């Protein structure tokens, strides 16, 4: 019970810190979105109209920092995220909801796949110590995990898309295709998702394989595994239901965190592949100085991570009694 209270307390403090940081950073930085907008559309906005734009965007309205802060907290808690500046006058929530499915789809699925496949491979590699899997996988994946993953993206674009022509070069979908839930459109999305998903999988799977393998090796050396073998249980059963389950525990926290980081972690992959997800939207928001959108995205990412960690902590506490009694 105390454990639960501590975790909730931590969650609230972290949330408050994130909100405040979120509020302060854009305000401490120089620059003015109206001017940035003016420059972006140079050729079609009379420079003298800058004041009018500022009024429309609601900046420079001479509110004190403190009252803006409380207004911001109040608005955020009520879900009023404001109007986006670069997509003016579309609301921020609409922009986010458009990009969310792409991020969840691509990065979420790739992360889960990577975790499942990587953990399984790592467990098997550890079980068959000295075997082919065990001696080949670790060094290969050490090297691969050291590659900047956006570069692997570039490489796969060059090889599979430009040279071989098997997959489209960039994007989430064919631009002029009819956007309906037809079989062909879904197929189009999948076709475009293969290369980015492959990139994410390749770079993340190494980590799962290695940590799972290391954990398994430690667990396999434990007495109860020897006992299980002595009792004559089937090796497969020991691998998955005894050793595997226990070796998995430390990985769960890592997995939860990586799910939370699904959005921010894919920024560069989305950039290289022009995938219209949240990471890319954040990058654009920063470049366009779109405060409301930037803040909301940053907040969304932080909340996602916090919630994921919280859930994993609860899950760990439920699954592993030892954590509940730590000092």
């Amino acid at each position, binding site marked *: 019970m105390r454990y639960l209270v501590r975790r909730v307390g931590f969650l609230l403090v972290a949330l408050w810190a994130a909100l405040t940081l979120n509020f302060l950073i854009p305000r401490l930085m120089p620059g003015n979105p109206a001017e940035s907008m003016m420059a972006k559309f140079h050729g*079609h906005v009379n420079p003298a109209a800058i004041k009018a734009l500022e009024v429309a965007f609601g900046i420079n309205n001479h509110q004190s920092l403190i009252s803006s802060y409380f207004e911001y907290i109040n608005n955020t808690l009520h879900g009023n995220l404001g109007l986006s500046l670069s997509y003016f006058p*579309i609301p921020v929530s609409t922009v986010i909801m458009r990009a969310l499915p792409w991020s969840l789809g691509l990065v979420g699925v790739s992360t889960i796949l990577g975790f499942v496949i990587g953990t399984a491979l790592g467990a098997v590699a550890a079980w068959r110590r000295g075997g082919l899997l065990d001696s080949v996988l670790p060094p290969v994946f050490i090297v691969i995990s050291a590659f900047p993953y956006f570069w692997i993206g570039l490489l796969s674009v060059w090889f599979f898309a430009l040279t071989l022509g098997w997959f489209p070069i960039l994007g989430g979908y064919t631009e002029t295709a009819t956007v309906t839930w037809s079989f062909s459109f879904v197929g189009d999305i999948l076709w475009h998702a293969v290369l980015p998903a492959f990139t994410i999988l390749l770079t993340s799977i190494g980590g799962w394989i290695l940590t799972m393998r290391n954990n398994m090796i430690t667990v396999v050396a434990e007495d109860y595994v020897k006992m299980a073998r002595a009792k004559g249980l089937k090796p497969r059963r020991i691998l998955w239901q005894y050793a595997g389950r226990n070796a998995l525990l430390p990985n769960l926290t890592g997995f939860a965190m990586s799910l939370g980081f699904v959005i921010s972690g894919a920024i560069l992959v989305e950039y290289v592949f022009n995938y219209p997800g949240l990471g890319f939207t954040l990058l654009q928001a920063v470049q366009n100085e779109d405060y409301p959108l930037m803040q909301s995205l940053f907040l969304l990412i932080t909340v996602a991570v916090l919630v994921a960690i919280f859930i994993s902590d609860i899950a760990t506490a439920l699954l592993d009694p030892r954590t509940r009694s730590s000092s």
Partner: protein
Amino acid sequence: MREKFKGGLAALALALVASTCVLAPSVAGASGQVPLNLDNEQGMEWACSFNPFLPTSSPYSVGVTYETLDFIDALQNAKVTPWLASADAWSNNDKTLTFTIRSGVKWTDGKPFSAADVAYTFNLLKKYPALDSNAVWSVLSSVKQVGSDKVVFNFSTSAVPYFYYVADQVPIVPEHIWSKIANPVTDPISSPVGTGGYIMSKCTPQNIQWTSNPHYWQPGLAQVKTVNMPAFLSNNTANEYLATGQSQYGAQFIPNIKSYYVDKKAGNSYWFPPVANVSLFPNLTVAGLSDVAVRQAISYGIDRAAVSKIGEYGYEPAASQTGIVAPTFSSWSSSTAMKSAGSGYDPAKAKALLKADGYKLDSSGVYAKNGKQLAFTVITNGGYSDWIASMQVLSTQLAKIGIKITVDPITSSNFYADVYAGKFQLAYNVETGGPSPFYEFRQWLYSKNSAPIGQAAASNWERYNSPAVDKLLNQYGATTNVATQHSIMNQLQTIMVQQAPVIPVLEEVDWFQYNTKEFSGFPTAKNPFAQPALYNEPDWGVVLLHLKPLS
């Protein structure tokens, strides 16, 4: 179990890949005709807002759906083509402008268009200043409908050049719809109703589709039935779209355009007409840069052709210190000013100018006077890699004449903040310009456009202040006499050469790629009937009207 697991996984993967390869995406197209696919990368998906007064959405509705009183072509020396207005006349010492409004025009919802809509539109801008993106009410005093087909504009001050903003840049909206909108500043206008040749038929974040208006008031135009404008998140995707032949009309910056685009398919062509100057803005309050000799030396020390070739693949022609963009505005060029500008690149003359002004080369090879080196930082937009490359070339060149330049690329948002506030020594940037050189000159040189260092100035970032020049600019603004206008522009060009308050480096071009095999009617150097870039309003709408499908 392991084998079964692995086998299952392999089967799943195979199935996924197979299904994606087999299923071909369907491409939308109406009425059997090949749709025109545009290539206009904006770095984001579409907001699907078509409010013609907001700079974030006007590029997608002004010209295509909403139209203006006249059409003014910058590439034909500001030639005026009557559009929604059939005639116009100045009176009252060029302080009153009367437009005769065309009859027989209908809105796309079938209701008739009239002078009332014109008067309503302009008074809407007065009521909501946030919509007045051309600041027309800074010079207007009243706009009234007179009779059934005339609208009278009264100016509070002589502002003849504002004709361009009033006639060519303000889209006319229907009173019967807009009078019912609660807040026109925040209304996205997702179903725009205009008088134009194209109706916005479908909008998703990924693609905007227009279909031609069957009741358009100009017969024989808008022959292309379907137009698509897909959203691209970066230059790379957009360029691929053009290179693979999926788009027939683009507005892209393409590196190595010959091998990347032109050679790929028959009919792939490009044309980059220059329209304004990308210049070095020296902060005239900074020591060293306040020295005329230094500024002139900088101008003579830049090998503009080399900057263009290395930094911009040669796409942007070298600019002239006179400030006149050639060949677009060559009819305004003053031969006296051109003669005194000389050959443009003259490092020997640059060094001579510095020496004559009392500068001496110091131990590190940089000119200095009274212990102060000629060492400056130039800020440029960090989002434009070609500008950064150009500045790097420029800095190597100026090093040869003993001026040390450090290139500082700044993120866009900070860059504009710094430029407007004057927080720089040198800045590399471009002004908005207009259909004749006067607009750019006024933006450069008119002291009231500027502001003290630390406050935002809309233009004239170098903080130039000359009462004589202000007087010339105001004289130009008060007359419609062409001979007077030319005489004033000649004097301004001589001042540009003699004082070098702004140093034009390259000419900013319209990015334009097109394929002549599927569609004809594109503007070319021989027939420059409109500015071709897809980001110019209302010009790109005019281009669309003149295109014809070939198959």
